[in-house]
């Protein structure tokens, strides 16, 4: 092999990578630049944007919390156990990824809408999923659940099951072994999945707009402003949510990536 080939190869990789990064960064940078100086303060002074931002962030957080409670145990079972129908369940969990999101909204409406099977059952208790926060959470949960379950499942699978075996012989119950041995080794991956899910949730439009146009999440508000008042009016909420998501992602990455010193000490 000639000595030049590897450097050419790496140069080609670098160029391809740079093109991709530019492709991702340029629209976001252009949008932020187009919004003009002082847009942040201006945007936050507008009540509808403030309310919409809070609604979006909190609804996505609630959806993530629900998915954490029900999805992490499922991910653990899928990572550890073989059973009939396991492949089918894994496929079904991933189904929302391939669903067109407006179709997901329609599907949710047929079950949880006023005339839907579950919607009718819950209506007497005052629980409604149309035009409510609950509907927004439901839509976000549906479309973003696979991101948490899949990431958590893969992370649990990476933790050697024999750690749990050792923990069992040391007196831990199966639940104790999970909480004290497996989860502490897998929490970064689970958290990464939760953040991915939350990020997917705050960006959801299609399913949310079908189930709950109001109250408006930030994606719906941006769309409404764009339709009614044009690009300039749509930029503040769009830029705001991008910045919020970016800051959260950066903060979580700082937590997820082990520091050099901790790496040297062998911390997971």
């Amino acid at each position, binding site marked *: 092999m000639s000595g030049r080939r590897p450097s050419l190869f790496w140069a080609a990789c670098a160029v391809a990578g740079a093109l991709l990064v530019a492709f991702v960064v340029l629209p976001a940078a252009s949008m932020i630049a187009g919004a003009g100086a002082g847009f942040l303060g201006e945007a936050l002074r507008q009540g509808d944007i403030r309310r919409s931002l809070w609604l979006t962030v909190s609804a996505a957080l609630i959806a993530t919390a629900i998915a954490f409670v029900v999805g992490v145990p499922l991910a653990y079972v899928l990572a550890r156990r073989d059973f009939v129908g396991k492949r089918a369940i894994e496929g079904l969990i991933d189904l929302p990824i391939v669903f067109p999101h407006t179709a997901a909204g329609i599907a949710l409406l047929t079950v949880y809408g006023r005339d839907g099977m579950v919607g009718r059952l819950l209506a007497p208790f005052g629980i409604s999923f149309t035009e409510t926060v609950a509907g927004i959470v439901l839509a976000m949960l549906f479309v973003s659940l696979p991101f948490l379950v899949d990431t958590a499942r893969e992370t649990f699978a990476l933790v050697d099951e024999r750690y749990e075996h050792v*923990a069992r012989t*040391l*007196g831990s119950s199966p639940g104790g072994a999970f909480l004290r041995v497996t989860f502490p080794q897998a929490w970064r991956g689970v958290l990464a999945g939760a953040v991915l899910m939350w990020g997917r949730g705050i960006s959801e439009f299609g399913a949310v707009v079908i189930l709950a146009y109001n109250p408006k999440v930030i994606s719906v508000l941006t769309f409404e402003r764009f339709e009614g008042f044009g690009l300039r009016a749509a930029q503040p909420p769009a830029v705001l949510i991008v910045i919020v998501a970016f800051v959260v992602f950066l903060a979580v990455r700082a937590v997820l990536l082990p520091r050099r010193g901790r790496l040297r000490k062998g911390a997971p």
Partner: protein
Amino acid sequence: MISLRALAIEAGGFGVGPLDLDVPVGEYAVLLGPSGAGKTLVLEAVAGIRPVRTGAVLIRGEDVTRMPAERRGVGLVFQDGLLFPHLTVAQNIAYGLGAAWPAWPGRRRRALRPGVARLAAETGVTELLDRRPATLSGGERQRVALARALAPGPRLLLLDEPLSAVDADAREGLQDLLRRLSVDDGLTVLHVTHDLGEAFAVGGLFAVLVAGRLQQVGALYDVLRRPATVEVARFMGARNVFEARPVPGDSSRLALAPGGTLRISGPAPAGVRHAVVRPDDITVLPEKYPSIGVGENVLAGRVRRVICAGATSVVEVDVPPLFRAAVSARELEALGIEPGIMVGLHVPAAAVHAV
């Protein structure tokens, strides 16, 4: 007594057993066998982390077959130690002492300190208590894993190839520690390995498992010198295994299927199908040795190949059949052994084992 009663295990289409094994209290038992024999499955079944298909596991008379692992009172050490990487050495040991949480505050944690210190001193890891597992050597990890396994005071210690991932120096120290735990402390041990050297260094009772079947249980020289089956003989390193039948009218002589006969010490038991000779029991003689052709079990043959393996080499001699003899480097040089030359082989009758 640790007893396995007609124990059968199945995993991924591979079956082990049914097998019966009794390990007296305080005994250091080694379950020996080639890779893929099912040794670890047996260990896991005894530990309670793998379900058994049929049969029973009894620990000191108590049937623990359906008992969860956490109530069996067994310690478990794997080949790679498997220390919990998110805990320090001290926290790993404390886990076995019942530390509810790694960073349990206050009185409870202080109460565990003497226990951790005692176990650390016993296993020689006192200096390592604040370290993380990733910074330890293979031998240090195994010592900590032992300390952790001993922490709950197990009735039985299960070891899965605990010495195979450590260097020679650390291995000797660990072997001493394991023997001490068994002899001095009376701990019952079931140690699984495919490594004969590791097994012989620590074991007192040997059980040989091949292809999921327990072939033989006995002391060192039983399994080494008097293998019960051809499979045990081969696993124990007897590389001369020939189909054979007693010579009609002379039951102390075996006729080898490939040709020739070998005298054995005493009459062959009924049903003999094979003659087994260990390479280290054969003496290679120079070609001009005066007893060639006339001595008992002295055979002449041509050297086909010399397989050098350091201090001891294996010389293949075509008699026929093809014999393999272990020869030291000194003998190899002195006799000028090389492929193509004629040599004599002396196979003592006492070294021919009829199976």
